[in-house]
């Protein structure tokens, strides 16, 4: 009898296991038997191109989620991005949290965890995410859920931002050709070309009106940014404003290093000679763009998406204008050094006590079926429109780290044979635009081909080497002293470049920086990463 019982128990356990194994996507997409409600707090995506009779609170995408999963999503509040953190603070202090809330600030995420206001979601990702989404998370290994793991417990659903959006050189190829020059690869060649542009004035701006190298007021150390001159700093081994892990495993703040001093000395010399835009400190973002678009400048640094924005206006303004990306300047060893992105900057959290903490996982599963084109019926919702994906209730963007590079390779392969078979819907769009530019010379399609194929492939070149950098959460000392430290940092960088402060004073800035709290912050960050 007991044997029989054991057998039955064993059989039942096996059956249970089999069920769990087969579950996978069945659980991920299973609708609730009874309609459940989910209130959401999120940022306003602005104009997402919905028709007159729909808006962000009422549209077919929300109905889609409801039809497929039986989850009725309503918005507790939709706040503006500019005041978003404030709105989340108000929600936290008033204790009035929506069931699911988007958080865009790591300090707030920490605060929510420390005050025990949000659900522990440990294990739910493996259990409820679809295979498609799980694969993206797993491709980042520990970093996938690392940003929201506290003491081994997972407290949120983080976004995953694709990498390879570091800056490299953009050059006016039509100017290079007109002057019979060659494309630069080293820093000296880049500067030489800038001098040539200023001297020969291929844009016809008049004597002394051509800007050598454009730069924005932040100068360096902002990821995925138009107008930083990061690559110049990197050839000196300098990574301003970034936390870099050295060979001994210790983390150092990139601004306060000998390498940065050398790089600043070089850049200050460029400024003195007038190669670097002499008026860069007073230019707004719009002014900066105007330099590139009106043909007053032929050299700047930016990531792969420059052709999508702002460069198309340059093409409208002057169809001959030909901005091309170049993997330059290379370091002496022939490599191009860059630092990596902060993978997770947005998190979805679940209010403590919400009965269905797994619901947001399911919403995301269905969202990705819709937005990545796996369900063709979604395209028929508003056929004449190009509704942005942020219309979905949980705007958590998930991409593979090298998503753009891989896509570029696939599109290029398809272009080689002029056969788009096997491309996913989004890449098929890019393919079609590329063909329009390559075969018909359609100027409006230039940007897609250049950004999605040329520039993205370039970003994935083999001689690109990433340094080991981290994005630490805010520490206690940062809360107290970071504002002041960043102020002296910004001032020193600008003053040295503008020759208002001798380079030698950089050393006293470093001493100051450590003395005014930098040392404590460095210790805290090292401790955070287990040093």
């Amino acid at each position, binding site marked *: 009898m007991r044997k029989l019982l054991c057998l039955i128990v064993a059989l039942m356990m096996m059956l249970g296991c089999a069920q769990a194994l087969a579950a996978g996507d069945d659980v991920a997409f299973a609708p609730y038997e009874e309609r459940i409600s989910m209130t959401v707090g999120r940022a*306003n995506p602005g*104009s997402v191109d919905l028709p007159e*009779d729909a*808006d962000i609170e009422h549209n077919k995408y929300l109905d889609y989620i409801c039809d497929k999963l039986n989850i009725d999503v309503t*918005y507790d509040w939709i706040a503006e991005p500019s005041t978003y953190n404030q709105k989340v603070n108000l929600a936290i202090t008033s204790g009035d949290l929506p069931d699911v809330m988007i958080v865009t600030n790591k300090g707030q995420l920490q605060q929510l965890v420390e005050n025990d206001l949000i659900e522990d979601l440990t294990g739910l990702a493996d259990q409820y995410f679809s295979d498609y989404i799980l694969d993206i998370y797993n491709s980042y290994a520990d970093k996938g859920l690392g940003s929201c793991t506290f003491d081994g417990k997972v407290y949120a659903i983080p976004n995953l931002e694709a990498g390879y959006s570091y800056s490299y050189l953009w050059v006016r190829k039509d100017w290079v050709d007109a002057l019979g020059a060659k494309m630069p690869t080293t820093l000296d060649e880049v500067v030489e070309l800038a001098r040539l542009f200023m001297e020969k004035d291929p844009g016809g701006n008049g004597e002394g009106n051509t800007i050598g190298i454009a730069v924005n007021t932040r100068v360096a150390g902002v990821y995925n940014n138009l107008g930083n001159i990061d690559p110049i700093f990197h050839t000196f081994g300098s990574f301003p404003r970034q936390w870099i892990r050295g060979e001994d495993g210790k983390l150092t703040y990139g601004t306060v290093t000998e390498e940065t001093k050398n790089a600043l000395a070089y850049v200050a010399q460029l400024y003195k000679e007038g190669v670097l835009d002499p008026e860069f400190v007073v230019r707004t973002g719009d002014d900066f763009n105007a330099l590139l678009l*009106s043909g007053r400048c032929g050299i700047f640094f930016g990531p792969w998406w420059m052709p999508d924005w702002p460069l198309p206006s340059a093409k409208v303004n002057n169809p001959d204008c030909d901005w091309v990306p170049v993997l330059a300047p290379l370091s002496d060893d022939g490599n191009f050094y860059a630092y990596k992105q902060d993978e997770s900057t947005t998190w979805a959290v679940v209010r403590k006590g919400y009965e269905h903490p797994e619901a947001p996982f399911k919403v995301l599963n269905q969202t990705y079926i819709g937005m990545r084109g796996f369900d063709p019926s979604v395209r028929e919702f508003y056929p004449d429109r190009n509704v942005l994906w942020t219309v979905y209730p949980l705007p958590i963007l998930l991409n593979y780290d090298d998503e753009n590079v891989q896509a570029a390779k696939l599109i290029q392969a398809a272009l080689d044979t002029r056969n788009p078979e096997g491309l996913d819907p989004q890449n098929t769009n890019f393919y079609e635009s590329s063909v329009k530019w390559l075969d018909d010379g359609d100027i409006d*399609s230039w940007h897609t081909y250049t950004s999605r194929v040329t520039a993205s492939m370039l970003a994935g070149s083999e001689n690109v080497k990433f340094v080991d950098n981290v994005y630490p959460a805010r520490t206690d000392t940062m809360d107290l002293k970071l504002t002041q430290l960043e102020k002296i940092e910004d001032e020193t960088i600008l003053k040295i470049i503008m020759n208002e402060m001798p380079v030698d004073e950089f050393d006293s800035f470093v001493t100051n920086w450590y003395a005014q709290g930098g040392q404590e912050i460095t210790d805290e960050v090292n401790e955070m990463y287990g040093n």
Partner: protein
Amino acid sequence: MTHHRSRFLTALRMNWWIALILLLLAFSCLLPILNTVAISLSNQAYAATGRVGLIPVEFTLSSYEKLMAEATFGRAFLISVLRVLLGVALGMLTTILTAYPLSKSTRAFPLRNAYMWFLVFTMIFNAGTIPWYMQIRNLGLLNTLWALVLPCAVSSYNIILMMNFFRGIPREIEEAAIMDGAGAWRVLLQVYLPLSLPSLATIALFILVQHWNNFYDGLILMNKPSNYPLQTYIYQLTVRIDPSTISDAETLREALKVSGLTLNASKLVVSMVPVMVVYPFLQRYFVKGLTLGAVKG
């Protein structure tokens, strides 16, 4: 009137060069406004390259179309009009009724100074955003039109302005009215108010502009874009060009027609319009010296 005009013309003939300089100066004040209007009506590609001066380059209304594209625009406009109407009515009521007693001496109104300090205190000390938000939330005003109107219904600044104007009206006029048997209400309504038209118009204009231009309270106190007043709606309208989503030429062409630059310019124009429309109507109240010569001896 004709007398005035001929004198003006004579002066103009005599000092034509002074007139010319002044006219040029006046015109230079208009230039930035004209430039903004021109940018708002231009194709953004040209605006972005800085080629637009006083005349639109490649005329287009796309930025205005973008501004008014969504159903939310009409609703936001209506909310703004309602808030201005309610706000001005309520604001005038509280300003007049508070300023009038405060304009009296402590003999007539013993607690005057206490009330005065109470008002001034609120001008200097401010609790901050979070208590303000919690208070309005606890009153159940979040997401309602009243949240935009009630919290700013009493303006200490306007009250002090109005009070000082009332004080400037000669006491004798009031005394004469009282001798004729007028009560406090009649003195206020039939003596003080008609004599205060210029400052009433000024304060009405202040309140109107303040209500029309305020976007911040809408941003914090309204939880849904569908409840935004016009300025908040306009404020959140930015062209978000997301490189990860622009794939086809069509979207890009649309995005390129409007950009931050042209859209911002059209936002400025739209926010200027109502005040420019209302101002001429209010101007006839800006008359000086109504009480001049009212008191003899």
